[in-house]
């Protein structure tokens, strides 16, 4: 068995640690790029959301390098993501690829037994002891939380750093260093080290940078290729960003959902505007917007792929939050047709708007 995964932000690094630790044979497809999008769009239904297309591109790249099994997570609805795997299996089958899908759906939908059974299908190929397998899972989760923490620190500190560009440089360096390390224990230690280094980046606390909250659909906010590297762009502008949705948040959310203990703060914040679940992460998006206003952020940017049903609903609600809570919100819709020029113009104009609102003339570009 040679296993591959679709990309989602930094998940590939944690998955690599997991597979290395289990001693499995695996292929990590090249990071999302034009080629993945090209092949993905070619073989996907035209109207499907952008993440679907990129995932197909990832599988094809993985298959090209000899993968015969895909490991991915699912949610069994209620937005299209929940049933991605079914359609993706069909598409790959029609293309003549013999490929096995192992879909980790939430306990709520398939039951604990089935989930463990599916996990065992991956684990069975590992010759390690049961103890080691469990340990590997924990290590991967630990790595994911560390990665998310590092990213969070870098994105927030970018507005305060003394040497411009240091946060971004360290973040990229960290990704490369950890990814090229094949020893899972060493990789974890490296992550810990980087977290400490990034926490020690010299900052000017007296600076008062623009602070923006990134909200919206989970895939497009996490996967930088889809949002045209918006967080990097904002880091370059010396703007602090914060984002609630991360891969480790998702795992936690999925686990706690069974006991209805997930993201209580976010859901409480969304109650006033959207008290019920409508699929995807629409409630979370609304909650984040409300929290952004309460936490004193200067603005929020909502990102979602063209045709994302839950986010279209939240897009319609956001203007009233914007009015009532006095928080400027910019909505960006992305798909494979997104033109970079218009996109950047909107982001630049939005940050100018935030600067000028603060009551002083902002020049500098």
């Amino acid at each position, binding site marked *: 068995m040679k296993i591959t995964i679709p990309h989602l932000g930094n998940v590939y690094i944690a998955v690599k640690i997991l597979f290395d630790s289990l001693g499995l044979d695996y292929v990590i497809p090249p990071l999302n*790029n*034009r080629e993945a999008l090209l092949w993905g769009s070619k073989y996907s239904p035209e109207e499907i959301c952008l993440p679907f297309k990129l995932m197909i591109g990832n599988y094809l790249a993985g298959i090209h390098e000899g993968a015969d099994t895909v490991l991915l997570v699912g949610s069994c609805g209620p937005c299209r993501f929940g049933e991605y795997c079914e359609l993706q299996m069909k598409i790959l089958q029609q293309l003549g690829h013999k490929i096995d899908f192992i879909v980790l759906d939430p306990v709520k939908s398939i039951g604990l037994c089935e989930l463990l059974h599916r996990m065992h299908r991956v684990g069975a190929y590992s010759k390690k002891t049961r103890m080691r397998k469990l340990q590997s899972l924990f290590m991967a989760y630990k790595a994911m939380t560390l990665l998310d923490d590092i990213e969070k620190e870098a994105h927030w500190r970018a507005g305060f750093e003394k040497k411009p560009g240091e946060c971004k440089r360290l973040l990229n360096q960290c990704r490369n260093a950890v990814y090229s390390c094949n020893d899972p224990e060493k990789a974890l230690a490296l992550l810990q080290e980087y977290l400490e280094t990034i926490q020690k980046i010299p900052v000017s606390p007296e600076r008062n940078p623009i602070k923006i909250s990134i909200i919206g659909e989970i895939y497009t906010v996490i996967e930088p290729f889809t949002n045209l*590297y918006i967080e*990097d762009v904002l880091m370059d502008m010396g703007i602090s960003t914060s984002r609630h949705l991360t891969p480790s948040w998702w795992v936690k959310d999925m686990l706690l959902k069974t006991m209805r203990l997930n993201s209580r703060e976010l859901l409480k914040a969304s109650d006033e505007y959207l008290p019920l679940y409508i699929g995807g992460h629409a409630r979370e998006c609304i909650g984040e917007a409300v929290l952004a206003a309460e936490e004193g952020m200067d603005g929020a940017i909502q990102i979602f792929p063209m045709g994302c049903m839950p986010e279209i609903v939240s897009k319609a609600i956001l203007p009233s939050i914007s009015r009532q809570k006095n928080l400027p919100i910019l909505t960006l819709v992305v798909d494979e047709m997104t033109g970079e*020029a218009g996109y950047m113009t909107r982001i630049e*104009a939005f940050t100018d*708007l935030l600067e000028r*609102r603060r009551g002083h*003339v902002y020049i500098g570009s």
Partner: protein
Amino acid sequence: MYTLGVDVGSVSTNMVLVDYSGRVVEKHYIRTKGRPMEAVQAGFAMLREKYHDRQIMAVGATGSGRAIAAIQIGADIVKNEITAHAVASISTMPDVKTILEIGGQDSKIIIIRNGVVTDFAMNTVCAAGTGSFLDRQAERLDIPIEEFGEFALKATVPVRIAGRCAVFAESDMIHKQQLGYNTCDIIGGLCDALVRNYLSNVAKGKEILPAVIFQGGVAANRGIHRAFETALQMPITIPQHHEVMGAIGAAILAREKIQQEDRTTKFKGFSVSTSAFQSKSFICNGCTNQCEVVSVMENQKAVGFFGDRCEKWRNKVSARALN
């Protein structure tokens, strides 16, 4: 001393010279024709005959081609067109609350309260109603674009045209022509349809309060102006230099920046008009990102790079500039 504002747009490249009091002393409107660098050079060739490099104290660039223009001319500030348009409008009419702007390829609405931009929107997927569409229709009806608006004003019973999409609008217009409707009524109907499309698409959900300014190349079209006034039921002002407002904004911003930072301009001089510029693009194979990198060469020397995510190429130029 003057400040120079350059707005490199999709259809036109505009240049203005603004004096210290903010008065426009010179303006040029050049067709970009898909070759922004040549358009900038053409403009500079005209300016060179009347002005000297030393008379320029600051330079600002805006428009969709702002990045490349900035490298070409040595701009002190590079600003997006939304901010530039807002700044220019506020300086010509301090109590403006809404700006309607329709250019060659895009249309925007900018909401201003107390002299500060509070909200904006740009057209997303459709170019119906922008300058290039009107240009094409004028050409098809064999009417000079300058007179297009006059025809609309002569309409007695404007025909209803489907304005949702440029392609449908065009086929609907052809259909109405075949049925024998009067050309003036068709053009009048087209103006109404485009305004309807703008208000329900770009300006959707925005609170349009007076004073309203209408600017951009399309503001010259009196038919559209009247259609806006009828639809919004309020007077709409068209500033004197409506077609070059972006460039004026860039000039104002450049002056502010130079004054604030108290330094001299980076302006390369009007001699840029005779340099040989070349740009070429290639795909960088340094990593799996596969960035599409554009390099700008001036007299066979690389002066700028864009599109590289890791800044590997961009740093090459800045490193050289330091030496």
